[in-house]
């Protein structure tokens, strides 16, 4: 029915347009016909006047010649204008062409942008107006919901998100507070973590934001819907803050590798770092990074080497010293006392942390090996006192203390 009405409307429109075109055209009164009619009148008048005797014969002849001359000029001009007549040919084809073109163009436009049931688009722009109240409504609803459920992480996150949208994507202080509460109510809430990271990035603390986001990326299941956006944001903030970022391709390539291949790739990267360190041996942080990477890969001898290099630039302390000592003692074959190089590191560790179990245990063995039974017993007894009552290693240490007696 609707289609029929549309067809009817089209036909009516086309018909209206065609009426003036199809109307039998008024016979074009060419200028020559007008002119000739006038001149004929003039000649007739001239004859009348001459017959009445009001015009002398000589003047009448001059006037006639003049009129005839004008007739000739008019005929000449008309000869130039005849080519206009080809427009008549155009008019003959214009009507059928328009008959076809108008419906075809209309159909083309309709097929391109139209569809049945498309809401009307009046010129008065009240289409834009409803968007703003929608956001305001959403914020009001989120606020109400959060007020009613002050401990519901979902409601709090929704509130924070609405407040952020209201501020054109800036995580405002109220939004920040909402997300903080949401995260407290539900640790690990991805939405709250994402926006808190965004807040840190906007507040000029990109390292904190990236750390938070990378942790979220690591804990997200691989099919999590937010991962794509999260990675894009990580890349953006890294770029803007000028931090090196492994490209998405690199990360994905790593994910596709088998565990063995991944290990191999990591080793290649660590070897690359080692090569850079040979070229730039004064970079203490670089040596420490290399040492940690080697230690994680289980390459303890070379980890110890790297620690020693860093130590030579500036003595290491704290956790780094502990890591170094661990790398040293892991090289000791079972049942053997630690070598001199390890003893040196362990002694430094013991000096820094007199109650470090690792140092006490291995330095005890070193003392025993060098024949200082008293020192060995003292260290192991200190260690025994530090261990919890049910530690399985107690028996072994008690055994060793007996050996020293």
């Amino acid at each position: 029915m609707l289609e029929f009405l549309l067809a009817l409307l089209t036909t009516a429109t086309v018909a209206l347009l065609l009426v003036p075109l199809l109307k039998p055209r008024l016979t074009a009164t060419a200028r020559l016909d007008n002119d000739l009619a006038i001149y004929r009148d003039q000649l007739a008048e001239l004859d009348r006047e001459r017959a009445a005797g009001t015009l002398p014969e000589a003047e009448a002849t001059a006037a006639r010649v003049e009129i005839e001359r004008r007739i000739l000029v008019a005929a000449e001009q008309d000869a130039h204008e005849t080519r206009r007549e080809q427009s008549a040919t155009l008019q003959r084809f214009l009507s059928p062409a328009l008959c076809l073109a108008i419906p075809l163009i209309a159909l083309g436009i309709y097929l391109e942008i139209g569809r049945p049931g498309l809401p009307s688009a009046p010129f008065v722009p009240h289409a834009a107006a409803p968007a703003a109240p929608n956001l305001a409504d959403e914020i009001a609803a989120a606020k109400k919901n959060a007020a009613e459920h002050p401990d519901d992480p979902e409601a709090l996150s929704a509130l924070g998100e609405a407040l952020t949208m209201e501020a054109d994507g800036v995580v405002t202080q109220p939004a920040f507070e909402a997300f903080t509460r949401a995260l407290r109510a539900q640790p690990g809430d991805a939405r709250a973590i994402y926006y808190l990271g965004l807040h840190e990035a906007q507040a000029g603390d990109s390292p904190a934001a990236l750390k938070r986001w990378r942790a979220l990326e690591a804990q997200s299941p691989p099919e999590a819907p937010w991962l794509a956006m999260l990675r894009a944001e990580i890349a953006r903030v890294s770029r803007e803050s000028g931090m090196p970022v492994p490209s998405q391709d690199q990360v994905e390539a790593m994910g596709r590798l088998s565990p063995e291949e991944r290990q191999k790739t990591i080793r290649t990267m660590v070897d690359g770092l080692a090569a850079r360190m040979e070229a730039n041996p004064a970079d203490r942080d670089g040596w420490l990074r290399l040492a940690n990477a080697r230690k994680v890969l289980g390459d303890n001898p070379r980890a110890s080497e790297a620690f020693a290099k860093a130590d030579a630039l500036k003595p290491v302390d704290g956790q780094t010293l502990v890591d170094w000592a661990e790398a040293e003692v892991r090289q000791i074959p079972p049942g053997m006392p630690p070598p001199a190089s390890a003893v040196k590191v362990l002694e430094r560790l013991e000096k820094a942390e007199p109650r470090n179990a690792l140092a006490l245990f291995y330095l005890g063995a070193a003392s025993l090996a060098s024949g200082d039974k008293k020192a060995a017993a003292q260290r192991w007894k200190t260690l025994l006192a530090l261990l919890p009552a049910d530690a399985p290693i107690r028996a072994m240490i008690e055994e060793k203390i007996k050996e020293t007696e």
Partner: protein
Amino acid sequence: MNSRALYLLPLLTLLIMAGFFGWSLMSGRDPASIGSVMVNRPAPPLNAPALRPGEPALTGDLLKTGKPVLLNFFASWCTPCLAEHPLMMRLREREGVTIIGIAWKNKPEEARAWLKKLGDPFAYAGTDFDGKLSLDWGLSGVPETYLIDANGVVRLHYHSPITERDLNETILPLLRAGK
């Protein structure tokens, strides 16, 4: 001979212009930077009515407390101010910096609503509705930020929203050194 030398003039002009453009490109000069005449001079007067009702009007004494302060001109209609706002909040919340805010050519009620929506980083807030105060400060628009040291001397003047880099590499080290 004389007239022939005249023909060389366009070429000479071209060479001079090319030289200037080449120098501009190579010298690393930033044509967008307009510099500031305020830096390293005593701060201009700061007399402004308070933005928040019930607070005393702002005076120049606020700039001579023996502690460095930041002075930030903002407006609720200014989008870069919105982008800069979280940095201001961080300076206030995490670094404990005293920030004086001036709402520039901004209706006080609109500025107050803006601060209510986003959070208020300003220890003191004033209003400069007619823009008279900002003339003394050489303001070219909003947002602009000044760092005034403990002795009331302007040390930094940003003509643009402050960025993470400005904050971490310039503003915070200076503030820490000033305390």
